[in-house]
């Protein structure tokens, strides 16, 4: 046994799970993570951007771009608010499902069919019926389409216990092709690009095209917060998400909750689709949602499925997006570099959750503690 003696050394680092973390400490860790992420981005910028390499003081312009991207002009600021609102809206739609541990990865498709439904009504009825009625019918169509897209995987999950993650993911592709199909029918010249609709446009409040969208999403945030935390439905969602067996034990019908919640989740995606269709684009393309259905998954997770926190996380992600675009413009670099920068910062933000959940113990620290203790004796 003694021959092993020399090699026996204490491990350098060992981990232990934190029981609970003080909110201030948690916030501090997250802040440090963002700062570290920015430092690493700076290094990347220094290595890859010629302008910065030549004049190192330009690095401040690089950091400043994140602020500039969203706040330098009123137009950029309103764009920031609008895009944050849309992203937040989709994330809100996902949250009831996520709280139920139903991993809905189909927000992209559910939102897209919402856009498609609204535009379809607009395409066939626009100009033939009063504008207000048109807008209402467009809304109903969008809600219905989103709900149908959401409830199909839920029905299969409730009936045959299919995997909802794959199912909802595949439904995204079906939605995309569905849009392509209609574009072929609607656009006879074969360009598949549908011109902007003349009718069915949401009114601008005080001359601002985006204000209505922002207000709707803000109201939705508060309503969903109340629904999830203070309603009987919200309570059932939390119980099912935590333990299906507990739900059965107290007599909650799990399939019913899954189906009801996915109808809601899909309908809210449809609502955002309606806002995109009637409030912004006035048309539909296969890229109408532009991947925000996937980004929203991250917004919801980072916001810990709390609608109020999600205001912050969606804002942060939009800030990074617009900052990246600004960098691309200011430093005349390709779009790939800003994507790298965004990725690095998100990596740090998500990675720091590890340090929030676990504590590291380094070798030798306890030995000092022991010495101190003996010193007291």
């Amino acid at each position, binding site marked *: *046994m*003694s021959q*092993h*003696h020399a090699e*026996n*050394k*204490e*491990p350098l680092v*060992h981990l*232990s*799970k*934190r*029981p*609970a973390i003080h909110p201030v400490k948690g916030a501090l860790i997250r802040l440090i993570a963002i700062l570290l992420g920015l430092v690493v981005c700076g290094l990347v910028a220094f290595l890859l951007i010629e302008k910065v390499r030549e004049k190192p003081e330009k690095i401040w312009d690089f950091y400043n771009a994140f602020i500039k991207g969203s706040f330098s002009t009123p137009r950029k600021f309103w764009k920031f608010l609008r895009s944050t609102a849309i992203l937040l809206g989709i994330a809100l739609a996902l949250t009831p499902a996520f709280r139920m541990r139903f991993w809905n990865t189909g927000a992209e498709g559910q939102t897209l069919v919402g856009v498609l439904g609204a535009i379809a009504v607009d395409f066939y009825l626009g100009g033939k019926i009063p504008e207000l009625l048109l807008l209402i019918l467009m809304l109903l169509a969008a809600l219905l389409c989103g709900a149908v897209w959401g409830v199909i995987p839920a029905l299969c999950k409730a009936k045959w216990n299919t995997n909802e993650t794959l199912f909802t993911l595949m439904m995204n592709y079906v939605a995309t092709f569905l849009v392509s199909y209609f574009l072929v029918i609607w656009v006879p010249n074969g360009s598949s690009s549908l011109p902007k609709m003349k009718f069915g446009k949401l009114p601008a409040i005080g001359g601002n095209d985006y204000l209505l969208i922002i207000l709707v999403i803000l109201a939705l945030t508060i309503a969903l917060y109340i629904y999830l935390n*203070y*309603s*009987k*439905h919200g*309570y059932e969602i*939390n*119980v099912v998400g*935590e*333990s299906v*067996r*507990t739900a*059965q*034990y*107290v*007599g*909650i*019908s799990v399939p019913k909750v899954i189906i009801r919640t996915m109808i809601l989740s899909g309908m809210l995606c449809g609502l955002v689709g309606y806002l995109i269709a009637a409030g912004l684009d006035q048309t539909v393309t296969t890229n109408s949602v532009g991947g925000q259905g996937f980004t929203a998954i991250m917004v919801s997770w980072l916001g810990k499925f709390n609608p109020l926190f999600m205001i912050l996380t969606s804002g942060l992600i939009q800030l990074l997006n617009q900052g990246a675009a600004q960098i691309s413009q200011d430093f005349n670099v390709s779009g790939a570099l800003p994507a790298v920068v965004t990725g690095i910062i998100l990596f740090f933000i998500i990675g720091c959750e590890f340090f929030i959940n676990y*504590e590291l*113990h380094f070798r030798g620290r*306890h*030995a000092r*503690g*022991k010495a101190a203790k003996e010193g007291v004796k």
Partner: protein
Amino acid sequence: MEKELALQMRGITKRFGSVVANDHVDLDVYQGEILAILGENGCGKTTLMNMISGIYFPDEGQIFVDGQEVVIRSPKDAFRHGIGMIHQHFKLVDLFTAAENIVLGVEEEGRYNLKTVNEKVGALANKYGFHLDPQKKIYDMSVSEKQTVEIIKVLYRGADILILDEPTAVLTPQEISRLFDVLRRMKADGKSIIIITHKLNEVLEVSDRVAILRKGEHIATVNTRDTNEAQLTEMMVGKKVSLNIDRTEPKDAAPRLMVKGLNLDNSEGLHVLKDVSFTAYGGEILGIAGIAGSGQRELLESIAGLQPLKSGEIIFRNPKKDRPVTFFHKSMKRVKELGAQGAFHDQDMRPVSFDGMSTAAIRRWVESGDVLFKEDEIINLRNKTPLEIRELGVRLSFVPEDRLGMGLVGSMGITDNMMLRSYRKGPGGFLDRKKPRALADEIIHDLEVVTPGVNTPVRRLSGGNVQKVLVGREIAFAPKVLMAAYPVRGLDINSSYTIYHLLNKQKENGVAVIFVGEDLDVLLELCDRILVINSGAVTGIVDARAATKEEIGLLMTKTEPIRKEDA
């Protein structure tokens, strides 16, 4: 000192966050002795042993094996120093034979030859008196046989120091005494055996010395022959505890729950309940004894409406409800007779008298529906969902075995857990947290639940406090039938007695209590009758005041497991 030291621990400390699991523990183990480590749950017994067997690494302190200081970083290191641990949960490959499991992961010189392995395993088993067929597959084995495989696995690797973590928890009394014989033989062979347990009688029976841990500290090590149950308990708990459970005679025991010919198949088509019949009376505690996994969980879940039955009836008699008298099932003559006997009353509970009334007047009065009588309501719970059962007015409470996975929601606070059964009440779509909050405060106060606040997730509470919350909620709904599955599993002595007293109180209130337990001593002391279940069939219902442990042990193992018939 006659005997040589096998293992020494000096100043071993382990912290988990702010919790100190072991605080400067010094412990000696000699060669050829059985050392029992005794302590309540959460006192750091298992943590301490995990540090010797390489699962955790101590924050401070030294470990010596045969006088040499060693550092144990992994189970492999532990084996190199001759230390082997037999965990509470077995780690075996079901499809392999005993011998294949035993050699798994052993690095030996030469070619792998199953025949020599079988011989070696057989020889080891014979040496210590185990009954084991090396070529038997694990899935064909009983719990006790699996444990034997685990022990031989450790011996095969040349362990001189064996640690057994709660080895008797899953065994019948007969199997326990066989295990103890084997341990004594190993001791005679010079092995050091450390046995973790919280059962005092076993400590006194098998060990040479007892080390008592309390709240992570090593309180004392005493020679077993110089001590007794009371002294050990006092050291373990830190204060004197009365170990008596008051058992009152059941009074006006009335049939409350009648289970008739219950059959249940699980999802794999195996019969988990076979023709189970029994009656539970209000005002008594019916114990259910059996080896773990004999169908206890399925039986309670069937009654609670969580399992779809194959056949059988579950009849609930709701005691004495006011019902209007009708002529449909009572003739005029019978009504007059019963009225004269004072069997009827009105809505204000005043006795009804028909004296001097004409037949027509009596008829008018009865037909108005104001003449009431008491009648038991008979409800069949078969194939009803938990919600339907509750809507029928059946007050059936159920404390499931899996507290956080079934009875409570771990991430919610006490208030939100109080609403689990009642949140639907009240109009509108919103929750009313006022009453649950008041109930939460009441339970915290009455049952002395230790929690930072009513909204602290119950997952963060200790096992005993979690159980108090669950039992408290189930009792708060004034049940007529209370089913509790292993309600004291993992609880320390004080919390266990709190639970026993709560169950006793329910019994005195006329509730039919069904108590599934694993500790036969407790079952015999607490219950009025004990139903013994074995492989899903009832093998006997005995009077707990007259039965013995051995008798119940025999009933627990009476027939062979069914899977043999299938094979």
